[in-house]
């Protein structure tokens, strides 16, 4: 399987910079997702790799070879599109066989390969169906099988699940990952759905304004966002403003609280204003009786909203540190209502600072 390297890719559309010297390396057999909001350049990057767009400058290397001088039909890359892209005049089998017909494979070889791949995506019994006889999820499975039939060097997926409803999306993304692992094919996946990216990728590149803000494993991206953009874009994050009071001990004062920050990258001088980030699930709540002082290491908060999310309930809090969101078990949340006073505890091990 091949490696993909994007080197200093730049692409502008008029005055809009879609890609701003983008660098990315995808290792052989790896599944990397480009994650970001609309207009961040992720699809442009993928289309440049596929050969449907050309950069103003930069290189795209596949197995060390620059492929920018090759047209899309000579790059041997499988691609699954956001829109349903099956050829309406062909059955599922004929769709899968199309790339093999272009390569002048024998009829038997084509049929065998089509059967094998349609079975791989769970559609062995739907080979003779036309796209209009298939559901959206089935069409995207056939599209995946079709893209794999040509034994591509890399697989490119451009938001292939975004047209499907939530439940099908969850099931299908697991299938995409299963097939990718089974074939070990190097894959570049574009999505704006953070849950999708985090759940199926080896690494995630979070993009904003044509640049990669952070590249790392899903766990690194989620628990260790390096920029405010990543912190805000991936998951839900509480932001606390504080002032550094001890550089050696990494202590920050936030309102009445002195918080010790475990972040090893902490590098702020005393007196500097910093932003601390903590996720809702790293905040715990304890009911306070009327007039009770919050225990040591906690501070007082008043419930302002309750949002039921299934297993957890997201609690909005008004505190001296500012508004906060906390996720608590829905069973515990039954004891809460608007204006309930609680003791709020931050899991100090999860506190992070982000420079600037």
């Amino acid at each position: 399987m091949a490696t993909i390297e994007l080197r200093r890719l730049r692409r502008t559309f008029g005055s809009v910079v879609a890609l701003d010297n983008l660098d990315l390396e995808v290792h052989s057999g790896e599944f990397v997702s480009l994650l970001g909001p609309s207009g961040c350049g992720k699809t442009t990057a993928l289309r440049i790799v596929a050969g449907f767009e050309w950069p103003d400058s930069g290189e795209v290397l596949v197995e060390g070879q620059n492929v920018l001088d090759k047209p899309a039909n000579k790059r041997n890359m499988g691609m699954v599109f956001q829109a349903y892209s099956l050829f309406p005049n062909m059955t599922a089998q004929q769709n899968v066989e199309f790339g093999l017909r272009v390569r002048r494979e024998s009829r038997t070889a084509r049929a065998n390969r089509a059967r094998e791949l349609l079975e791989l995506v769970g559609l062995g019994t739907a080979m003779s169906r036309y796209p209009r006889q298939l559901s959206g999820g089935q069409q995207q499975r056939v599209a995946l099988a079709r893209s794999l039939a040509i034994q591509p060097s890399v697989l490119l997926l451009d938001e292939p699940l975004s047209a499907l409803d939530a439940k099908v999306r969850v099931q299908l993304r697991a299938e995409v990952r299963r097939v990718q692992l089974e074939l070990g094919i190097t894959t570049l996946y574009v999505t704006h759905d953070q849950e999708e990216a985090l759940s199926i990728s080896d690494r995630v590149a979070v993009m904003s304004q044509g640049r990669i803000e952070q590249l790392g494993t899903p766990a690194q991206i989620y628990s260790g966002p390096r920029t405010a953009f990543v912190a805000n874009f991936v998951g839900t994050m509480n932001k606390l403003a504080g002032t550094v009071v001890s550089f050696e001990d990494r202590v920050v004062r936030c309102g009445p609280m002195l918080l010790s920050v475990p972040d090893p990258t902490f590098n702020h001088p005393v007196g500097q204003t910093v932003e601390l980030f903590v996720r809702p699930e790293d905040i715990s709540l304890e009911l306070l009786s009327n007039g009770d002082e919050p225990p040591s290491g906690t501070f007082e908060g008043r419930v302002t909203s309750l949002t039921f999310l299934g297993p957890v309930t997201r609690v909005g809090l008004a505190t001296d540190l500012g508004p906060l969101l906390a996720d608590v078990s829905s069973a515990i949340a039954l004891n809460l209502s608007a204006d309930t006073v609680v003791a709020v505890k931050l899991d100090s091990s999860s506190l992070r600072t982000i420079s600037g």
Partner: protein
Amino acid sequence: MAQVTVPVARPRSHRSRRARRHVSIWHLWWAFTGVLFFLLPVYSVVQFSLQGVAHGQNPFHWYLTVFDDPNFRSAFWLSVQISLETVAASLVLMVPTVFWVHLRLPGLRSVMDLVSVLPFVVPPIVLIVGLAPFLKVFSSWLFVRPEVLSLIYVVFALPFMYRALDAGLRAIDLRTLTEAAESLGSSLPRTLVQVILPNLRAAIIGGSLLTVAIAMGEYTVASLMGFNTFSVYTYDVGTSTAYEGVALTFISLLLVWGAMLGLYLLGRGGSTAAGVAITDKNSL
């Protein structure tokens, strides 16, 4: 025990039944009027074409006369030949052009829209007056060939062929289909022939039939250029023998209906191949 109220369907009142019957009568009335409007002239044509026959003669005498006339056969086949050439030339010219404009030059669509309606603006007589000296100067040989009529009819058929292809291409996701085919290794010509054209079948058939209708029925240019096409022959016969002319008119009508039936059957063939569509796009 708690009562459960279940909404039940109301029994149909006499009033609603009356209303349904009332609507049905209107439907029938309009259908009858429509049928009368279309069939009465046809009936009159048939009736007239069967008159004027001498006692003991075949009632279809005028039809047989038309078919026996070698001029009819030559005029008919000339028109068929010109029609097919016009269709072929229109498709060869328009399909790649419209495909390319849609795919790579979408900004030119408005220009194409404008150009495609020019034949409506320029009357045929103006076209032929402008073309005749040009063709005579540059190629007197070309001027006497029936193929030149096909070239002129390509211009006449331009709005119909362009609109049909434009609508067909707008109905499919051209960019995605083309890119999908390219990603599978297909060249652009192969993509056009194997992926795009089959999905434009209805548009191509529709545009082609309209083109045939124009080429078969055009009189002004053919007459001015001295070709004895089907329409010229029909006019000439109509001015000399009324019964035969009317019989010929009915034959023309049958041809048009045959063409429409062909269009219907070909279009239906495409939809049955695709079978029943699944409406729930989100099921697995």
